[in-house]
């Protein structure tokens, strides 16, 4: 088994890791402010259990600071209940997630955070619509022809936001027919549009041409001057 953290990853990424390596992959969550990795998934692999006797967790609307309804997306806020040296009260970690208070399949009643969807500061607003890089990753993971390396580039041209997603070409996707490649770009564009609700221009780029960052990967270039 593997316990994987440090950066948000998607359900589709889990499938890819498990299928290609044969291990079971579990998500782990924590930050250095809270003393490192603290919470992990149980055997059900369906959300990260927060130990509610140790930490008080809330999910809030980042703009108003008010808690959102159960099951709604918002920013995670944590209060430490037993930490003595450096207690934190309603500490805004900056991660966007969904909290689930339902009893887990495993029998535990501690609430679960259902996947970190991204960082609050990673969130892009494109033509008024919230876009998380994690959503793009999820879509790409469901299209086996394309690789996992991508870059979101946002420009403002004639007062209009234009979102482009560059994806690296793979040996599997490459065809020597131009129309095959254009069809693949259209297919990925349509899949992104159905999830993000905005038009996305997809551009396949050469293998190895996108930056490989260590640690927290930077997946967005925002060229808009606001």
């Amino acid at each position: 088994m593997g316990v994987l953290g440090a950066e948000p990853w998607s359900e589709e990424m889990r499938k890819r890791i498990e299928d290609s390596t044969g291990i079971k992959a579990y998500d782990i969550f924590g930050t250095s402010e809270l003393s490192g990795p603290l919470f992990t998934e149980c055997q059900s692999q369906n959300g990260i259990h927060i130990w509610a006797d140790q930490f008080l967790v809330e999910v809030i609307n980042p703009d108003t600071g008010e808690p959102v309804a159960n099951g709604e997306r918002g920013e995670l806020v944590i209060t430490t209940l037993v930490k003595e040296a450096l207690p934190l009260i309603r500490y805004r970690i900056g991660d966007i997630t969904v909290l689930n208070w339902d009893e887990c399949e495993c029998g535990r009643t501690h609430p679960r955070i259902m996947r970190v969807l991204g960082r609050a500061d990673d969130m892009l607003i494109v033509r008024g619509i919230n876009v998380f890089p994690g959503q793009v990753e999820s879509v790409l993971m469901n299209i086996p022809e394309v690789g996992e390396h991508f870059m979101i580039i946002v420009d403002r041209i004639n007062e209009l936001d234009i979102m482009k997603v560059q994806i690296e070409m793979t040996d599997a996707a490459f065809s020597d027919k131009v129309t095959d490649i254009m069809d693949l770009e259209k297919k990925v564009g349509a899949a992104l549009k159905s999830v993000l609700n905005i038009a996305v221009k997809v551009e396949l780029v050469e293998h190895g041409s996108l930056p490989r960052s260590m640690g927290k990967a930077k997946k967005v270039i925002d060229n808009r001057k606001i």
Partner: protein
Amino acid sequence: MEEKMIKQISLFAENKPGRLANIAETFKESGINIRAFTIAEAGDFGIIRMVVDNPDSAHKVLHDAGFTVSETNVLGVEMEDMPGQLAMIADVLSEKDINIDYAYAFVTKTEKAFLIVRVNDIRGAVKALDGANIRLLDMSDVHDI
């Protein structure tokens, strides 16, 4: 039937300066010679297609250099270097309902012209062109050009 086909090397390239020079340099270092060459452009990317004297080695060299590359079976059709030849070949194929995906031509020092063709039914195309007494290149021809 494979001996009537030739292997084409195709690679994916962004439209960026220096890509071609990079490929040429890679080939020079490996002693690979290009016999025919074309670029299909489509906005921000292009597909470079070429016939080389040693396709298997070219494939390996390019792949190891980090390119996305594939090998495709195509036909090398010998033409007299005179008008009407291309139309004649197209007719032979269309009579058998064979579509040409793409084609490009090159001329050699022997005064012959060659047409490199990718079709949707390569076996059918070999049969049709053979039947019309049109000569097809094999890999040893490519080597000797």
